[in-house]
């Protein structure tokens, strides 16, 4: 309400000229400056701003195109290969001539030092916070060793053909700089050193962080055009909007949907791009009396939501979701169910499952008041509640704080932490096969993994197992399509919308390529 009212109030204002020069000023949605040691907190927004611009991994995202889904590319490793005799072993050829911002070289010793920082809790450079984040995203690293100064071997606890996709979430910091500041991560955070195209020049907790161009960046094609960037944490959408409209910043993340028409009218650019980033309900299939244990009920719910209406509610900052990947993409396949807003079909399916006007489906859904990637959970869920009621699906909400939801998500769905809910509305990344394994593989059922809903499908598990040991891309591609078909038809999630990741910027900002990814590249950005 506060957000909507204030967005409307501020929307009445007039545009003011920005005064940037060569420094791009960005308002993030984070409530604090993400940590600056090289493995940022604040979720993937932390990675977007205080991760990739400053620190890099062996493997990086290719964020150069707006036309195709972002894929991985060589980063600090020039190339990699899976050992044909032992598919749990991966050999990485490290890039020559890369230096950290402090001038020290990146080589196998520096890489091993960072792996120890994350995976060896007895190492002097062990960093608990960074380690927790890396190990969460890369739980399968079993060992590592230096082969020579520029060759590294990392082994996994089981064959994982998509292991390079997990390595984009492991960034490397300078061991030399760590020692120089007294072998203390708190001191390193104030004077960090990575290998990326920008370097941190000033860090004021809760206020701002300043980045400067790394003119000696190893990739000459990606030396930043900007002189620098100023990043401000601004969690309140209205404040971000006012900061943009008063010219205090040039770019804001996630403008309030209500303000988008007025921003456009005042000459600001609203940048979005289409890519798979689901905002779903995850159905609880483990709870004995959950109506969603019946696939017909899950499919009926999917036929009874007005996705286009939801997009309208969000002023076009989302697009309908019909499956894990986007419809029309090469990975979507041809599922039997093409979900549309079809209440009659939904009612027919519910009748087959034994539900109707006299016996409505009753379910409780856990929703959060806010949270990373949660978009606007309250109005969006109320919209769904109203739509589903048309098909005799009566939804109650268990409204919780974001931290409570995360606790529930990590525990058994029948445990007390889940508060007896039949589904949970939690935004989950849906970009690649590694995520499909996280959310749907039966071996990953919570609390042992992130398959909170306890979805289990024999064909899915078999195909995933084959993908994990596969070596040919063509074979993997066909199997990935089939995996998507299975999750669309079996509907372990209510497929609602994909977040378009909206951002608003002044007309001074040029050269930005909105990649089909949650992450973005700031090196081509310039200011008029």
């Amino acid at each position, binding site marked *: 309400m506060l957000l909507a009212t204030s967005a409307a109030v501020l929307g009445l204002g007039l545009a003011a000229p920005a005064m940037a020069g060569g420094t791009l000023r960005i308002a993030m949605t984070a409530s604090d400056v993400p940590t600056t040691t090289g493995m940022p907190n604040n979720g993937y927004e932390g990675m977007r701003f205080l991760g990739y611009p400053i620190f890099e991994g062996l493997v990086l995202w290719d964020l150069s195109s707006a036309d195709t889904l972002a894929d991985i590319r060589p980063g600090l490793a020039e190339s990699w290969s899976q050992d044909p005799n032992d598919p749990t072993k991966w050999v990485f050829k490290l890039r020559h001539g890369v230096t950290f911002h402090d001038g020290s070289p990146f080589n196998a010793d520096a890489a091993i030092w960072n792996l120890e920082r994350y995976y060896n809790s007895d190492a002097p450079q062990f960093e608990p916070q960074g380690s927790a984040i890396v190990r969460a995203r890369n739980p399968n690293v079993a060992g590592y060793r230096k082969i020579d100064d520029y060759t590294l071997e990392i082994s996994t606890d089981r064959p994982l053909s998509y292991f390079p996709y997990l390595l984009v979430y492991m960034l490397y910091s300078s061991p030399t700089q760590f020692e120089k500041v007294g072998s203390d991560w708190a001191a390193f955070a104030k004077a960090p050193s990575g290998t990326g195209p920008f370097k941190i020049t000033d860090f004021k907790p809760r206020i701002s962080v300043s980045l400067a161009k790394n003119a000696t960046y190893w990739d000459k094609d990606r030396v930043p055009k900007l002189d620098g960037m100023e990043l401000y944490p601004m969690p309140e959408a209205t404040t971000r909007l006012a900061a943009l*409209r008063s010219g205090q910043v040039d770019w804001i993340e996630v403008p309030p949907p209500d303000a988008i028409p007025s921003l456009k009218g005042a000459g600001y650019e609203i940048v979005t791009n289409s890519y798979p980033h689901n905002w779903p309900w995850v159905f609880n299939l483990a709870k004995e009396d959950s109506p969603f244990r019946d696939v017909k009920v899950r499919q009926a719910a999917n036929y009874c939501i007005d996705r286009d209406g939801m997009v309208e509610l969000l002023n076009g900052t989302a697009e309908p979701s019909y499956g894990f990947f986007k419809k029309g993409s090469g990975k979507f396949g041809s599922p039997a169910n093409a979900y549309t807003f079809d209440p009659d079909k939904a009612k027919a399916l519910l009748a087959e499952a034994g539900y109707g006007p006299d016996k409505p489906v009753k379910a409780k859904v856990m929703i959060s008041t806010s949270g990373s990637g949660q978009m606007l959970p309250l109005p969006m869920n109320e919209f769904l509640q109203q739509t589903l009621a048309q098909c005799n699906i009566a939804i109650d909400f268990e409204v919780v704080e974001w931290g409570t939801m995360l606790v529930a998500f990590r525990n058994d769905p029948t445990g007390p932490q889940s508060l007896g809910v039949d589904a949970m509305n939690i935004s989950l990344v849906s970009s690649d096969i590694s995520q499909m394994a996280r959310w749907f593989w039966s071996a990953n059922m919570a609390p042992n993994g992130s398959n909170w809903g306890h979805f289990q499908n024999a064909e899915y598990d078999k195909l995933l197992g084959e993908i994990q040991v596969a070596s040919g891309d063509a074979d993997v591609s066909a199997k990935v399509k089939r995996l998507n078909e299975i999750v669309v038809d079996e509907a372990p999630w209510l497929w609602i919308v994909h977040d378009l990741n909206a951002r608003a910027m002044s007309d001074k900002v040029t050269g930005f390529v909105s990649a089909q990814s949650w992450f973005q590249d700031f090196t081509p950005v310039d200011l008029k």
Partner: protein
Amino acid sequence: MEIFILRRVLYAVPILLGVSIVIFGLVQLSPGDVADLLIPPEAPKEVADLLRQKFGLDRPVYEQYLIWLGNLLQGDLGVSIFTNQPVIDDLSSAIGNTLKLAVPAAVLGFALGIALGALAAVGRGGWLDKLLSGLAITGVSLPHYWVGIVLVAIFSVTYNILPAQGMGPQGFPSTWEQIQHLILPVITLSLIPMGVVSRLVRASVLEILSQEFVTTLHAKGLLHRRILLHIMKNAAPSVLAVMGLQFGYLLGGSILVETVFNWPGSGNLMNLAIFRRDVPVLSATILVLAGLFVVINILVDVLQALIDPRMRR
């Protein structure tokens, strides 16, 4: 007087101890913990458990509390679990930032409150009283975050003459740029103390006006201005008590105003610590603020006792 002050200071010890226990108890009662917020949602449970172990969060609450209290007595406020930075650094900068708002807001609010309250009382029942009372009630009643947003909409977005957010360059506010950043949040924050003090001053002055000694002063032929001074002196103890409380509230930082203006003060820090379950930051912040609150109230007690010796009893 010395015994009076010593007694007040000694009272503060059990108060602060009680506050520290309540803080720990409440943090433990709230669902979730820092380990869950520190790591991504997809993190396996064992990673969260490892982190809890590393930070001693798996120990019994009383043990965590005693360790924290022991460190506190040695002047160590601990390290933020979330940022790994010393709590003392974050806290001192946050309280410093809040002081930059609280002091001018208190000065403005109290000065206006006293002036408007006294004027309203003197002109009791007339148009001036009604106007000033209306202003005071408006100041108290309007949600100040809303006032902040409206001020931003007018002065920052529409006319672009004042900054919409942030506090500008760090340091003591001495340059015009720094002062510009203060204007809107200070006005917003001063409204409540202005309203509260104004209403209280009006009521106190009216009560004193009806007392016999005022009639005596009039009968003795004292100037109106001198009589008003006597009245204000008599009204001072009760007004001071409320001013002390109001200044304490301002020091605690307004979470809403600091959010609207993106001001990195103590309210902002506490808000972050609550949502992150960052126990060291939260505990230290509340305890230090409670300590400041207690100190302010001791100062008010002393001032009241100086003005009115009967209060030393």
